[in-house]
């Protein structure tokens, strides 16, 4: 049973950053702007917030510091995504190219600034954030072991983001307008919605989430930040497509990816799987093969926002 718990806890370390970042991507794409800059924004968010943690070490610690870092990561990601918003909304640039530019810029910037500030590119941090067991809730049998032990407060922030995203997207005026801009911006404009504003909102939300995702990714994974998030921004895009731009499906998709990645990485420590003798490559392939299969079956009536990737031109009605 302990193995089940530890696999589940590890799965969360994969799932939550993927979930948060993919939800960010969802907001942007639902507003009609493709955001492949998620990787770069993750790096930027992680960079600024880890730097904050590094600088305030000793003064702050524990959950206060982590929550402040989350806020800082969100702001950093948002500011950075402004470049993408400006290029692709105001300047009507190719959204893929603008996103790629951000992806290339972010790690270079992180290393450059880190070296100027402290001489080396790795930014050290001390992890004082892990929660061994959540008070009271951690004592619940099974559920406590699954959800409330060996965890980070960011896991709950991720779940909160999921719930809020679902409500905002489907139950508010703002969400309806945002979706309309992604499907048919001309129609939205004709009823008096400011399409540019909506698209800005979408990209900025994606920036904030991706920034948080970067921080959440780095904290349990390493003891320093080395200007990389190991391609998880791109993986989040795959999760987004696998989840068909729908928040709850994105949750399942990211959980599935997370579980498969956990099993692929840790099967040697799980006696049942170790004795099966299936090579780890099989586990590593499963999520991607599944994505392909799912795409084959869903591409005919894909849920992708219709107007995504097309710069909105007021004049073209």
């Amino acid at each position, binding site marked *: 049973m302990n193995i089940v718990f530890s696999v589940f806890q*590890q799965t969360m370390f994969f799932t939550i950053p993927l979930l948060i970042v993919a939800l960010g991507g969802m907001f942007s794409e639902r507003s009609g702007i493709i955001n492949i800059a998620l990787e770069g924004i993750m790096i930027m968010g992680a960079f600024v917030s880890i730097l904050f943690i590094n600088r305030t070490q000793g003064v702050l610690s524990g959950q206060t510091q982590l929550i402040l870092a989350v806020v800082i990561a969100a702001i950093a990601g948002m500011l950075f995504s402004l470049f993408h918003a400006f290029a692709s909304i105001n300047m009507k640039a190719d959204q893929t190219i603008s996103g790629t530019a951000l992806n290339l810029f972010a790690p270079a910037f992180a290393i450059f600034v880190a070296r100027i500030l402290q001489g080396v*590119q790795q930014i050290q941090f001390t992890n004082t954030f892990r929660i061994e067991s959540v008070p009271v809730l951690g004592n619940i049998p099974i559920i406590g072991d699954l959800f409330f032990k060996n965890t980070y407060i960011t896991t709950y922030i991720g779940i909160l983001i999921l719930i809020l995203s679902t409500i905002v997207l489907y139950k508010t005026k703002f969400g309806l307008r945002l979706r309309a801009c992604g499907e048919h911006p001309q129609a939205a404009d004709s009823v008096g919605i400011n399409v540019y504003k909506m698209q800005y909102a979408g990209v900025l939300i994606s920036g904030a989430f991706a920034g948080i995702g970067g921080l959440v990714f780095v904290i349990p994974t390493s003891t320093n930040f080395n200007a990389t998030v190991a391609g998880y921004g791109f993986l989040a895009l795959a999760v987004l497509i696998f989840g068909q731009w729908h928040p709850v499906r994105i949750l399942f998709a990211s959980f599935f990816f997370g579980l498969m990645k956990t099993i692929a990485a840790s099967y040697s420590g799980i006696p049942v799987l170790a004795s099966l003798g299936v090579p780890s490559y099989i586990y590593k392939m499963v999520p991607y093969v599944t994505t392909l299969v799912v795409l084959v079956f869903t591409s005919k009536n894909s849920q992708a926002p219709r107007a995504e990737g097309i710069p909105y031109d007021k004049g073209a009605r």
Partner: protein
Amino acid sequence: MKKKLLSFVLAGCMIASLTACGSSSKTTEPTNDSSKTETTESTDAATDTKEDAVAEGEASADGYELALVTDIGTIDDKSFNQGAWEGVVQYAKESGKSYKYYQPAEKTTDSYVETIDLAIEGGAKVVVCPGYLFEEAVFISQDKYTDVKFILLDGEPHNADYSEYKTADNTMAILFQEDEAGFLAGYAAVKDGYTKLGFMGGMAVPAVIRFGYGFVQGADYAASELGLDSVEISYHYTGGFDATPEVQTLAASWYGAGTEVIFGCGGGVGNSVMAAAEANGKAVIGVDVDQSPESDTVITSAMKKLSVSVYDGIKAVYDNAFQGGKTTTFTAANDGVGLPMETSKFKTFSSDDYDSVFAKLAGGEIKINNDTKESDTNAAVGAFGLKVAKVNVVQ
């Protein structure tokens, strides 16, 4: 006719600009990615900015005398390149030489050779090449520039198909007995009471493999010395040098399954192992340099004294004592490998224990099987003839 002429001119322009791209890319601003071409001034290096001004000032006269060409990593990789770079910087500062490092565009021999050319054009008299990836590049360059001295770490110059090995008189090849460092780490861990060990290497390159083999044999040696019944070792190469959730998860699963200490052998891999160890309250053994400042979980480090070897090498050049034309191996015998006993967190393993096993290694009393030719880890481990330790190779 006019059109034809125009198209010719345009085509010419295009070709010119393409070639310009090719060569100018080498002088672009420093960026992060090791896959990109960079020439980086010593200004943004891991050094003191004040001293750098000196280095740069002198450069105007006859370029940068001491050059280091990095391999995949950067000069602050906390391991190979950094160790070598520290040696360069230390010597340069002491004797007022100018110095600079160059980062090749790609991980290819062609690119390494080009970068070495560039360093020599930039005035380099001594070129330090850290890593076995430079074996071919140095083989080519050593004959091209006979008045330039090459220091090759972790390898011996040879041609592309390994049919010819040649270390010219202007080249000093430095090898390390990583297996001895690994042996010491494995020995110390078992002597200190750990019976469930793990080895997590980066890519299965010779240096990493030797660390692992030594580690396994050291653990076995200690186990039979202590008369233990069983020592279990999980053994795995991650295939990369990055910190990833995969590595962290694998380490966490090993710790969860009872492993007490993992030898994290390969750049960022070690950091992910440390993260897992912190979460599980377990221990880590560091690699290459003393990694104890990186995490409290690091109980010791299997060190290669890179900076010492580079420093000695450069010093020899200027003292006219350069040991060109042959391979120098840094071992326990000449204090080239070891554990940092001052910063180690052992419970029972004392400095005296360390000194006695170190002396045995240095004196050749202990023989380690370090044959990295066998590509199959299972077969290789089987050939050690381990008495007590049981190695579980994870593919």
